[in-house]
């Protein structure tokens, strides 16, 4: 591609790329760089930083010196546990979205083309409403004397209200509901390109339905599934609306821990920046591993 002289826009190539580079540079790279620098600075009491370089923020993250800082340093699990809780929660939400989203996408892709548009439209309609409002509505729906419990009680299916609000299950429900289309849409896009005559061919060759699904459909739409998983996993990990509103904010999530450092009483900007950098590095590692794995299997296939 580089150095082609036949294209209409040849010669303009660098100029045409300039806006993208500006956007990436100004809006993506420079904030990350500022964050990286801040994470090594000394905190100023009640917000702000002092320009003295230190590792204090990372020390606080990884080492436990007791409440009064006078004990020999041990491994600090507090923040790692908060991260792990958020990661675990995001993994569960991703799995749940995949379990429901994959059949949904399959269903839509197998409808006649005119009907697909309607189904896709129906998947996206609820997302025209603000996320906050949808999460609050979920809270109203599932609380102890909310419509769901009242309906179940009235029909006699349960004799005691199911206690959902302020539990991890409620958080899962909220995340699942918030991010489902992020799974359905990429999987559907991949499924639409999948030629269903391959499934028919497999059936002609006596492959069972499960065999066809595992060995033909899923490998073909795998890029869509992986894209969907990433699109659900990453925002779920940083989510704080669902954990706060549906989980009762009893425990910090990554998102709320970092927010507290900037907006709360603590006002510890370097620590908030360090926690963000550690989160960013963790996500980057996962993505690097994924692209590495992708290219490897791609080569193996060829």
């Amino acid at each position, binding site marked *: 591609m580089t150095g082609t002289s036949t294209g209409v826009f040849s010669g303009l190539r660098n100029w045409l790329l300039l806006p993208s580079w500006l956007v990436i540079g100004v809006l993506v790279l420079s904030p990350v760089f500022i964050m990286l620098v801040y994470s090594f600075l000394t905190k100023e*009491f*009640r*917000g*702000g930083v002092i320009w003295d370089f230190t590792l204090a923020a990372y020390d606080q993250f990884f080492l436990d010196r007791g*409440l*009064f800082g006078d004990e020999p340093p041990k491994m600090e699990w*507090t*923040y790692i*546990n*908060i991260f792990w809780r958020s990661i675990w929660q995001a993994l569960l939400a991703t799995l749940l979205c995949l379990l429901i989203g994959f059949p949904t996408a399959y269903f839509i892709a197998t409808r006649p083309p005119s009907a697909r548009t309607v189904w896709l439209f129906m998947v996206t309609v609820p997302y025209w409403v603000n996320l906050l409002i949808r999460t609050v509505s979920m809270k109203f729906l599932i*609380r*102890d*004397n909310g419509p769901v419990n009242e309906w179940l009680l009235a029909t006699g299916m349960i004799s005691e209200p199911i206690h959902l*609000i*302020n539990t991890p299950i409620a958080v899962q429900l909220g995340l699942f509901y918030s991010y489902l289309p992020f799974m359905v849409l990429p999987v559907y896009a991949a499924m639409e390109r999948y030629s269903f005559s391959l499934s028919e061919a497999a059936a002609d060759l006596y492959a069972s339905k499960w065999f066809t699904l595992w060995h033909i459909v899923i490998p073909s739409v795998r890029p869509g599934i992986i894209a969907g998983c990433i699109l659900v996993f990453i925002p779920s990990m940083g989510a704080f609306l669902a954990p*706060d*509103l549906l989980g*009762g*904010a*009893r*425990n*910090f999530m990554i998102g709320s*821990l970092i927010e507290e450092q*900037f*907006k*709360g*009483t*603590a*006002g*510890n900007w370097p620590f908030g920046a360090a926690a963000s950098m550690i989160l960013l590095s963790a996500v980057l590692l996962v993505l690097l591993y994924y692209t590495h794995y992708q290219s490897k299997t791609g080569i193996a296939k060829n």
Partner: protein
Amino acid sequence: MKRLFFAMTTAFLLVICGPANAAGKLSIYHWFEYIPQELLDKFSAEHDIEVTMDTYDSNEALLAALKGGRIGEYDVAVPGDYMVEIMSAEGLLDTIAEGELRNMGNIEPQWADVAFDPGRKHSIPYQWGSTSFTVNREMYSGDIRTTSILFDPPPELSGKINMLDSQGEVLALASLHLGIEQCSGDKEKLKALNALLQNAKPHWASFISDGAKDVLVSGEAAVGMIWNGFSAKARSENASLEYSYPKEGYLAWMDNVVLLKDAPNRDNALLFMDFLLEPENSAAVTNFAQYTSGVTGTYELLDAELKASPELNPPADAPSGTFVAVCDQATQELYDAIWTNLKK
């Protein structure tokens, strides 16, 4: 074409950069839903001043915005008691000279000189109230005038308690429960405070501030930590709610109008402060927000319902409220650690 463009740009720049200290303007930085629009309109009409207002949702957000470079943009703000002290220490406040406010004498004697702003050099009272908790009497009929309801609850209330998601207020109320002073650096006392919170947490269902009223009204929580005026509003929607004035003590707070440093319209800011010190105007705020004014002569002007409100009238034997204290950096870090430990 070029000339037209130039003319338009110049006109635009003149509009947005117009003289910032033009007479006839006032820029307020205020809490959300805390002042009736009619009152702002009245001030506008009386003094021929154009009023603009931005809002914030916490004292810390106010501080972060001003420290982040917005000082010099606003004339007045309305920080809580401890935040007045912090803002003053951070050099964000201007001094009101002797005699600059002609209604200074309208301040109630008990608020004329306060610890968070000695001599009222930077601030005037806006509204004050208390922070304690409210119990749904249909769910619990025992004695509620004790902080044990929150920190060592009877079995029937366990798991049905909402706390405010506010470090300062939760830790200060817990200190009152234990009878230890705030901002204590004493290791044994801090360990006891930490242990109290760790043991109480399993009994708490949630940490919700903005929905503190809603969880009580809906019955989602049987007990909820809450501000008195907010609790009065909750009671008007659910009659079985009762606000408690615990015998161990409860928290008091006061929001104050402060004169900001580098105020672009300093004279109008003073006019506005004098305006809010008129009993009639202060009463209008109180009738709207349902807390208590710090200005003399407002009581007669209050709505009858408000005068009789149990949330605003502590029982005769209740102790007086305690303000949240401002700790120094070293001590504050210990309290931050205890809070993180509670929510980890």
